[in-house]
């Protein structure tokens, strides 16, 4: 007769921690240039401005130092938009040259979620060329062979 448990065991941290969580997974490796265009006197540009601020933080900028974030201020009441110009490999993968978000009716969290869904997934995967082995890892690899020897010696 009992209803199976549904719901969350932990309370959510609120919108700020949700934004922080999304921000941690933003990856701009697949982007060449970001252009944020908005009219500062319009009513609903708060989310666009916040998104611009979050893109300029050092952690996000470090994911791709070559990516340029440009802000375009217009004064003719155009709707605000954010354009991501992709690099070549990402263009082939997504089959589009650039991705555009119309951010008039989106809030900051939604913008970040969309960005993670469409843009961060296009980041090229980095291959590890030469991995430096730590002492523990070396022991593990070579210890499999020498473990038997060591045990008999102790005895």
């Amino acid at each position, binding site marked *: 007769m009992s209803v199976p448990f549904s719901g969350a065991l932990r309370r959510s941290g609120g919108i700020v921690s949700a934004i922080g969580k999304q921000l941690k997974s933003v990856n701009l490796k697949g982007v060449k240039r970001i252009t944020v265009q908005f009219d*500062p*006197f*319009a*009513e609903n*540009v*708060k989310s666009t*401005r*916040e998104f*611009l*601020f979050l893109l*300029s*933080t*050092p952690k996000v900028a470090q994911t791709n130092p070559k990516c340029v974030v440009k*802000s375009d*201020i217009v*004064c003719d009441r155009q709707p605000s938009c954010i354009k991501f110009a992709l690099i070549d490999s990402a263009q082939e993968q997504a089959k589009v040259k650039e991705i555009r978000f119309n951010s008039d009716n989106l809030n900051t969290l939604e913008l970040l979620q969309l960005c993670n869904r469409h843009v961060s997934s296009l980041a090229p995967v980095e291959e590890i060329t030469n991995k430096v082995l730590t002492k523990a890892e070396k022991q593990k690899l070579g210890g499999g062979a020498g473990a038997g020897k060591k045990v008999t010696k102790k005895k």
Partner: protein
Amino acid sequence: MAAVIPKNLPLIRTSTPALQFLRFRGKINIQRPKEPHYERARVIAVTQPKYPEPPKAGTCFRTRAERTQQQLENPYNEIIAREVRNWLDHSKLVAIFHLNSITADEIFRVRVQLHKQNLHLKSYGRKIIGQAVEGTRYEAILPLFHSNHCIIFSPDQQKISTLLKITRKVPQMVLLGGIVEKTLLSRNELMAYAQMPGLQAAQAQLVQTLNQAAGNLVQQLQAHQNSFVQVLDVHAKGEGKADAAAEEE
């Protein structure tokens, strides 16, 4: 009290009770009182005072915050709002920037460079600016303060070109708009204003334009005389050269 009790009547002998001193030299404990015994705690719980609630009719239309007196507005906010109004009224040039993520070091450097040109970089919260600007003629700048921002005040509007030069070097500061001599200007208008020559140059241009009409008329009237004089000049020079050549021979 002892003097009032009569001593001559029988069975009315009183004696002072033996005094037992509880406190000796040490500090008394009031910060960590002992938990009372259950019976004593029961008596205390029952004898707690109950104060009458104010009648609901009186508090009916007050909000919960007013009823429980949760948060009072800090009067210091009003003082800062007055300061903002003062800055807005007395500066001929006000420029508002959007501020991206910037280190304190960098913004200090910008602040120093601006200070050398008598430009003052300030930043206030949106609530305070709203308080300062609501109902005044500056109300239109309110939508610019929804996100991270800074404001630059200057008592001299000619400094716009130096201001733009300094902030061009800072990629984190994005110009949004400004107020020049009580007129709200957008970003493009502000840049155009910076390109314009100063007031004296503009006045000189105006004078030149006004004189042009009359000057044109004078030029037309004197056209024939001027061309005649030029032809004579050329002729005289030509004769002079021929004379010099003949003398040399």
